[in-house]
């Protein structure tokens, strides 16, 4: 009964979605304020019914209702409760329901926090978001219904959740990622709404900025968590694989990063108006493309969902409709817009332009690498190739190095034109700071590798110039310390974001170049030496978990004779799904991880064991979280609250317009 209720709520939500897309739009064209104002309550209704639908699925999981096919396939009565609930988004159908729920959530949020918008604009934006939700809900109802029953003969117990996914990382990774993907629907809706009015001014940039930053910050958290999860859960110590599905999340991130910078330029200086609109369309398009790549089975990947051509065709048709439609609208509407504010080549606008070109090129290169196997297959009668890390690293790394150099010098630039005077002061300081950090890196580098020195120098140079910039803002103040805390939240956001990038690249570079690893055969009592640590396998034993049994090793690690830590890597056997899983054990510290994973038994009570020493690997994810924190910070900026307080006047003006 509950599952049917969930199904029914979803159908009701679809009905409300249709109303949301249609009624306010009629209102806009008939100038009927009542119809336009319906957008708010329809958004709330849409969200509430999606929430009911999602809760029903959650209840089916909690209640072990194995007559629901999706529950039977992805849960089991022995599964711990937190995994039963996260199993809701453990496979295709439920995860798309989560996606749609989040779409409803963003729509509702826009309707709540759009006080500064005119009634007309608000109606347009919400109608577009409603139209997008229609597509998502139809997709679920027509091709991927999680509420389907297996009746009359249903299994006594479920097939269990894929053990890879029985993990904290999976509880939080997809929701964060979807918050980001779907969040890009907000700037997309703003962009399209602005295009339909035909008045492409800077105002839409001011409305979109906080939404874009938040969505982008969520996406950053999602990708960071994904990388962290891959590191400890997929085993073998990798943290980024250039896998098609990873790329699917990384491309919108790159475009989103370009977008938040370009929005800043559009808002502050009114430049790049049409380009920013295009980026907003791209960011969401790449999110949809990611959904297509993951769910259609067009590319093979370690974490692609189950495959169904019907679903693929549906998403492809949806892509054509949404992206093709918006790009056509773009081509028609932007044609009228000409002159933009000019800027000098020394201006900050130039920096942002370079940032945008590099990021978009990088996203294009990743897209090409991701789709190349398909293109190749089409032109060679089905010969298969795969494009791996060598391509991506070769193309991506040089682009990023250029980008980091621009990041380092950009705080020294000013909007419109960097004054001669400033240039004269900044230029020696930039070169000076470069020389200082480069000599520091050279002094401390234990191994002379051009790549390491170059990358670490860039990372430090970025930080040095952030510090210099902050200092320049307080240097001529009397009360220096309070001034340090009186900058705008947007500014702190920028500092944190850029600092996070520096931390991440330092982490990546050090991990890549200084990791040590060994594959060994170890029996109880054996000792192995790695990077100054001694790893001793004390014992192997059998243990029993809630839904698995495991071989567990006890590995004690010593440094200079002192015991540092005991690690317990496991080889788990999940009885219901008959899956074998490697659970690595890791001793994390700020400056290095010690990582032990069990391979296979190799006879005589000996096991294949892999040990890693990974310096600075935590910095990769710590940096990612700093970047995200920066994104969230900017929303707290007082400017956006000021917009809210002027709600009353804006509304009345909007109606008059």
């Amino acid at each position, binding site marked *: 009964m509950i599952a049917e209720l969930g199904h029914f709520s979803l159908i009701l939500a679809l009905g409300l979605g249709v109303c949301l897309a249609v009624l306010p739009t009629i209102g806009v064209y008939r100038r009927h304020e009542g119809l336009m104002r319906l957008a708010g309550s329809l958004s709330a209704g849409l969200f509430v019914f999606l929430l009911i639908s999602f809760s029903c699925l959650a209840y089916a999981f909690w209640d072990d209702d194995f007559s629901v096919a999706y529950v039977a396939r992805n849960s089991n009565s022995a599964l711990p409760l937190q995994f039963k609930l996260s199993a809701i988004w453990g496979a295709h159908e439920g995860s798309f329901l989560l996606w749609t729920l989040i779409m409803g959530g963003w729509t509702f949020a826009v309707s709540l926090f759009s006080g500064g918008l005119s009634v007309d604009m608000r109606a347009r934006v919400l109608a577009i978001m409603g139209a997008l939700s229609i597509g998502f809900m139809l997709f679920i109802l027509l091709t991927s219904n999680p509420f389907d029953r297996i009746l009359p003969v249903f299994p006594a117990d479920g097939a269990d959740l894929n053990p890879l996914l029985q993990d904290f990382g999976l509880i939080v990774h997809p929701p964060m990622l979807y918050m980001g993907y779907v969040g890009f629907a907000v700037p997309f809706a703003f962009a399209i709404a602005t295009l339909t009015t035909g008045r492409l001014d800077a105002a839409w940039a001011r409305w979109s900025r906080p939404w874009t930053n938040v969505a982008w910050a969520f996406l950053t958290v999602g990708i960071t968590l994904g990388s962290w999860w891959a590191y400890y859960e997929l085993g073998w110590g990798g943290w980024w694989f250039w896998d098609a599905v990873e790329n699917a999340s990384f491309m919108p991130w790159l475009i989103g990063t370009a977008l938040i910078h370009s929005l800043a330029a559009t808002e502050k200086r009114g430049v790049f108006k049409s380009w920013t609109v295009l980026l907003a369309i791209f960011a969401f398009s790449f999110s949809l493309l990611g959904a297509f790549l993951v769910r259609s089975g067009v590319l093979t990947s370690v974490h692609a969902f189950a495959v169904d*051509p019907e679903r693929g065709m549906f998403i492809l048709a949806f892509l*054509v409709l949404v992206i093709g439609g918006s790009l056509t609208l773009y081509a028609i509407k932007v*044609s009228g817009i000409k002159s933009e504010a000019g800027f000098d080549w020394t201006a900050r606008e130039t920096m942002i332009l370079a940032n945008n070109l590099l990021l978009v090129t990088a996203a294009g290169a990743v897209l090409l690498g991701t*789709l190349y196997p398909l293109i190749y297959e089409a032109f060679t009668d089905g010969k298969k190739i795969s494009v791996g890390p060598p391509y991506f690293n070769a193309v991506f790394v040089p682009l990023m190095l250029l980008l980091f150099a621009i990041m380092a010098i950009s705080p020294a630039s000013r909007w419109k034109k960097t004054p001669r005077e400033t240039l004269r002061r900044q230029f020696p300081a930039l070169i000076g700071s470069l020389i200082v950090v480069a000599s520091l890196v050279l002094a401390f580098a234990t191994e002379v590798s051009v790549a390491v020195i170059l990358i670490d120098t860039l990372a430090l140079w970025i930080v040095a110039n952030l510090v210099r910039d902050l200092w320049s803002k307080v240097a001529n103040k009397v009360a220096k310390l309070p001034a340090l805390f009186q900058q705008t939240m947007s500014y702190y956001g920028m500092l944190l974001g850029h600092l996070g990038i520096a931390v991440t690249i330092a982490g990546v570079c050090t991990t890549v170049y200084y990791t040590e690893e060994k594959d060994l055969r170890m029996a109880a009592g054996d000792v192995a030496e790695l990077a100054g640590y001694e790893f001793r396998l004390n014992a192997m034993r059998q243990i029993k978990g809630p839904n698995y049994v495991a071989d567990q090793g006890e590995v004690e690690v010593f440094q200079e004779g002192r015991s540092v830590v005991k690690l317990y890597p496991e080889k788990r056997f999940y009885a219901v799904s*008959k899956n074998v899983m490697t659970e690595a054990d890791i001793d994390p510290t700020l400056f290095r991880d010690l990582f032990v994973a069990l391979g296979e038994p190799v006879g005589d009570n000996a096991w294949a064991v892999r040990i890693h020493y990974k310096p600075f690997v935590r910095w990769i994810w710590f940096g990612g979280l700093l970047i995200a924190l920066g994104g969230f910070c900017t929303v707290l900026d007082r400017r956006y609250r000021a917009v809210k307080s002027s709600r009353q006047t804006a509304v009345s003006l909007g109606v008059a317009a």
Partner: protein
Amino acid sequence: MSSLNKSLLIPLGIFIVLVAILAGGFGLKDPHFLPSQLIDQQFPDFSLSELNDPSRQLTASDMRGQVVLVNVWATWCPNCLVEHPELLRISREEGVPLYGINYNDDPFKARQWLVRHNNPFQFNIVDNKGKLGIELGVYGAPETFIVDANGIIRYRHVGPVSRRTWEETLGPIIELLKTNPDRVKG
């Protein structure tokens, strides 16, 4: 309306090319297209080594002479483990030769997997580059083919084999092929 600026159509153009690629890639891989292409076709030629005896080269002629089941599997494929007990039962009880194609896999891991879960296969073709799989139009693992005595593919099953699959499709088709090969149509 103002005249259309042609350069603004570039993004749309790029997108159309992209859709063509995606749609094309999609058509190539659509599992529903494959049966019509491969059913009643000769099993593709190959020369690949045997899993547990790498010195032995296997070719398509090793499968001739009787109706056989050919199963495409891999250690990375959870559903292969799901169908494994049924494959073991078929090889034990049904009297039809079962051959394996170890697809896109690490032969070392594959040998260990067979030791751990028992080996229902008479021999295993090592297709670690995935070439044979591509010629067969394999979409993913597991897939199971019925190949007749003349080496012609007669049926293709995608996904795990269950007791029900055996009883409702594989078993009857094999029975029919054994008794009256000419009456079977793909």
